[in-house]
């Protein structure tokens, strides 16, 4: 498919043209912050208009693009109790035509993990709130050139320049131009809209080199190959490492809510008077009440068990159920964890344990 060159300072023009072509444009944007030493920079994906500031190409946003496919809260339908009758009203599944710009490779790869869960590939149930949004969304991804200390995409089969899941992929070259690669039909449409800004056929060699140079900057390198077989050995479920590494976890949901692939949710009725909405909203396996039965029985009773579930979810459950990893190596759960619980330490520990057969030591306190 087509490749081309785009000038980086034409990105604002790209936004103009896409807006004019009736796309809702989403891009990463730095958020205003208060003065004083206690605040840090935060960038999130937001709907932007022509002329709005954005920070495409400047680091990995604090949170990903998940909210535009799977919002943190959304109504499922409205109900009204009328005496003995109930009237239900469907929510609209008509979503705006959307383009998300400047999506990092890990984030654009995460879409496939979400799709595995929400689409009818999973047990035949199609969550159209997700899939219809996905149909309407085009992803313009952007290679990383400056991965940070927490990035580990290369340890989960991705790379700072991977284009898995992308419709149109851009790579910033050392000369400041962008190498553009059209990947899908949806990407072709974007290319057509911005055609006036595209020239030539890009520089495939420089793009390749930029990818290699970026990958070399990644310092968190883990061998993920031994993880699946080790986790699949049920005997290791009671290994001492789970408690040792996990007991400091405080059970907040920061790691799961920042994670681009975490998909867990709860459903609740929000009532006012005789009517209301049934609402789906993000939930987390790190919360103590997540698996609490009405009887009081909790199937994951300690915090380390909840993090064990999280690690298994990413590296075993996803593999077993969907045939892919549930982690794209974005490192957000590392950056955001208040107690520096680091998923790559689990990866390293497992690789270490897997390398020494029979080194497994059962935890005496484990029931």
């Amino acid at each position, binding site marked *: 498919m087509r490749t081309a060159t785009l000038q980086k300072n034409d990105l604002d023009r790209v936004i103009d043209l896409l807006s004019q072509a009736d796309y809702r444009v989403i891009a990463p944007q730095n958020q205003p912050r208060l003065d004083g030493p206690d605040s840090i920079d935060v960038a999130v994906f937001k709907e932007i208009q022509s002329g709005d500031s954005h920070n495409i190409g400047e680091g990995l946003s604090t949170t990903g693009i998940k909210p535009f496919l799977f919002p943190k809260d959304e109504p499922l339908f409205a109900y009204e109790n009328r005496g003995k009758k109930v009237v239900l009203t469907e929510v609209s599944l008509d979503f705006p035509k959307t383009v998300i710009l400047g999506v990092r490779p890990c984030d654009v790869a995460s879409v496939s993990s979400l799709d595995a869960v929400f689409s009818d590939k999973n047990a035949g149930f199609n*969550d159209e709130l997700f899939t219809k949004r996905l149909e309407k969304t085009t992803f313009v991804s952007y290679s990383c050139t400056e991965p940070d200390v927490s990035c580990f995409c290369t340890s989960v089969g991705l790379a700072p320049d991977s284009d898995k899941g992308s419709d149109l992929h851009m790579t910033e070259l050392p000369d400041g131009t962008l190498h553009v690669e059209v990947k899908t039909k949806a990407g072709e449409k974007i290319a057509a809209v911005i055609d006036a800004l595209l020239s030539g056929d890009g520089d495939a060699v420089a793009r390749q080199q930029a990818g290699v140079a970026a990958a070399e900057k990644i310092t968190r390198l883990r061998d993920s190959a031994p993880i699946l077989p080790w986790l699949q050995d049920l005997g290791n479920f009671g290994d001492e490492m789970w408690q040792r590494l996990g007991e400091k976890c405080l059970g907040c949901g920061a790691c799961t809510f920042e994670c681009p692939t975490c998909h867990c949710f709860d459903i609740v009725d929000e009532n006012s008077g005789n009517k209301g909405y049934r609402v789906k909203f993000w939930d987390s396996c790190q919360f103590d009440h997540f698996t609490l039965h009405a009887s009081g029985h909790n199937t994951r009773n300690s915090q380390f*068990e909840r993090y064990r579930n999280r690690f298994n979810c990413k590296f075993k*459950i996803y593999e*077993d159920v969907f045939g892919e990893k549930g982690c794209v190596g974005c490192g957000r759960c590392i950056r955001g964890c208040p107690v520096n619980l680091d998923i790559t330490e689990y990866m390293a520990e497992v690789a270490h344990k897997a390398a020494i057969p029979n080194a497994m030591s059962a935890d005496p306190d484990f029931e």
Partner: protein
Amino acid sequence: MPNIYQPNLMTIKKVINETPDTKTFHLVFQDEELQENFEFETGQFGEYSCFGAGESTFCIASSPTRKGHIECCFRKTGKVTNALFELSEGDTIGFRGPFGNTFPIEEWEGKNVIFVGGGIALPPLRSVIWNLLDLRDKYKDISIVYGARSVADLVYKQEIAEWEARDDVNMVKTVDPGGETDDWDGYVGFVPHILENDFKPDPENTVVVVCGPPIMIKFTFEALERLGFKQDQLITTLENRMKCGLGKCGRCNIGSTYVCIDGPVFKAAEIDLLPPEY
């Protein structure tokens, strides 16, 4: 088409007070075509809503052989079940389903079948019990071992009497020590104990279906294994916390097994391959 989270509406045709905190509803779809065409198999479950309170998961407690309505039976324990408990005949509830796998009743043809249930866990068994009784000549001996904390906690008292009266069902009932009344005519003791020491079933050509709290399942399986039963003769249902019933909300998993998709019916051999998170 509504999205997969939007329930179908049903009318409560009948309410039966089983125990002071347990009720059975007889339910009919408000959409006539759906009522006509609705099908399920024994063992499957549904998501039942009380609008304004939310959704709760329970099995379909009636047998697929009995058309006309479906039944559910629940104990009030949380927000939703408390709200459902307040509803009366003629009221509307929501239903999503049927979800999950089913009891492999074809595999049991020509065999003796023993049902073992504890407390509120009789409803899933009730569905499959009636299913088998309605196909009675395909099966050999059918026995029901049912126990609850106390006489007051026994559900389906009417049907227990009906099963006791039948000569093609062997009905064994028990209550936990201290839960008996003066006129109690059943056993006194925990289900696994009664099973192992009084009922003593013969493993030959027999399957056992056990439903109850996790701890009861564990002890019952152990007792049955001591009696010579093999793992592939033992079947149970697991009830992890569920929300969506669709494999999406992520809360019912036991390792890589989603109870809402891969369950709720499991063989003992399958449970042995699961991490201890149920």
